[in-house]
């Protein structure tokens, strides 16, 4: 009798674990994001109006509307599961960090979850005003002088949000506020991995700030790793 109870409890626990969105040791989707064609040339940024930032860059940095890597890799692409996975209403307790350094946003594209805490720091010697421009989330605009504590905020709706600083017009960044934990931002070679996917049919979307988004369907049956590649058409302007 007792063994039956223990057995049933074990089954219940196993079932509960299987129903959560991320299953350690589950299947995965991996791939590369590349471009074809010639992307627009990035322009060097003139920071002479802000000497404290200009002197942090031995050579001027460039705009980041299209960032490429070796072998036609396309960086700063947000690859995420847009359908097939349940919405995760409890975000990770760990905050994500967005930094203003050298009058640049680091990282250029920051992906995080709905209601996850975002911490914005100013590591420069000049004031910045952090001004994300959402359309469905609330728009706010806060001044952040040097030496003041990090600003904590969160967004309650999924959205891709451009970020700017009004004082330094060359500063541009992006927030990707997503509904679940299955996302990655391509870095260092255009590759991404979405691990811990339970079996099911998924729609994977790749979003680039200049080239829009593309979707592909993928089915995970067990603990396999499926490969999904995205190719964006580069525009010369």
């Amino acid at each position: 009798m007792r063994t039956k109870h223990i057995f049933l409890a074990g089954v219940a626990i196993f079932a509960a674990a299987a129903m959560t969105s991320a299953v350690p040791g589950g299947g995965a989707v991996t791939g590369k994001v590349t471009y074809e064609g010639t992307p627009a040339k990035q322009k060097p940024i003139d920071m002479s109006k802000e000497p404290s930032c200009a002197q942090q860059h031995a050579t001027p940095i460039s705009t980041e509307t299209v960032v490429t890597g070796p072998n036609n890799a396309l960086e700063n692409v947000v690859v995420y599961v847009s359908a097939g996975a349940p919405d995760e209403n409890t975000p990770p307790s760990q905050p994500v960090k967005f930094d203003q350094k050298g009058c640049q946003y680091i990282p250029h594209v920051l992906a995080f979850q709905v209601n996850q805490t975002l911490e914005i720091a100013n590591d420069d010697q000049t004031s910045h005003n952090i001004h994300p421009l959402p359309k469905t989330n609330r728009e706010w605009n806060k001044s952040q002088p040097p030496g003041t504590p990090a600003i904590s905020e969160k967004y309650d709706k999924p959205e891709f949000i451009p970020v700017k600083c009004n004082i330094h017009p060359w500063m541009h960044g992006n927030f990707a506020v997503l509904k679940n934990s299955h996302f990655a931002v391509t870095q260092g070679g255009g590759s991404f991995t979405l691990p811990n996917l339970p079996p099911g049919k998924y729609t994977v979307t790749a979003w680039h700030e200049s080239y829009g988004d593309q979707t592909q369907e993928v089915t995970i049956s067990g603990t396999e790793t499926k490969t999904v590649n995205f190719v964006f058409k580069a525009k010369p302007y």
Partner: protein
Amino acid sequence: MRRDKLTRLLMVIIAFLVMPGLASAQEMQSHVGKVTGHSESGKQLFYRYCWGCHGFRGDGNGENWLPTGSFSNPYLNIQPRNFVAASFKCRSTPTGTLPTDEDLYDAIKRGFVMSNMPSWITLTAQNRADLVAFIKTLSPRWKSDKPSEPINVPAEPAVSLESIKHGKELFTKLECWKCHGPEGRGDGPSASTLTDSNDQPIRPYNFAAGSRFKCGASNHDLYKIFMTGLDGTPMPSFADVIKPEDAWDLVHYLRTLQVTHSSPELALWMKSKEGAEIVNAQKIGGTPTGSGIKQ
């Protein structure tokens, strides 16, 4: 048998309680002083007075804004408020939050100087309250967002030279001059690059020009401008970085930048050597052929 009747009675009572809620789901109210506004009445007024600029849906795309259907020839220099997006410039509430009913009422009554939004004092207080109630039906935010609390504005301390001088230090330290310029003339290094949240060019306020602030003319209004930020514009909120006492010092200093507008702050500032020097260097006096020019 008795239990069935009781249950049925309870269901009927509950139905009666719920029904009014369903019927008035679209009806909003506003409360401004002693006046209660109703959105049904406001609707009639909106479609008579407001929609030409603010648009049929209240999204700021009225026919007066884009008569030719493109941005190349807008009749109005500043786009009318988009009530659907519900992000408002002149508020008593923190950045990113909804305004109070009073904020909207004051905006309608005062109008926006230097823009095409007139001062609607021709309408009665009840009319204006009704319009506020109707505006609140145009965006789902009024139902989904928690009502926001106005910021706490402490009593204004007396104007003094120390207050003005401290305000001057804050103006430099907080880098207001980056946009507003060192004399507050709207000619700072970043001024010409500013765009609002619709990517339209926008200029920072020019204190020396002396026009009223868009969000009101008093010191209290000026305090709220930089402590709540002007949402939708480059002007951020400094609420997290200025202490309330310091904020009043900045208000007093900003009044001395309005060199063509007489105020107690400017009068006191002119009495000091430092202030007189700065203001006289800026003051635009006389006409090219008049007697005000110092030779």
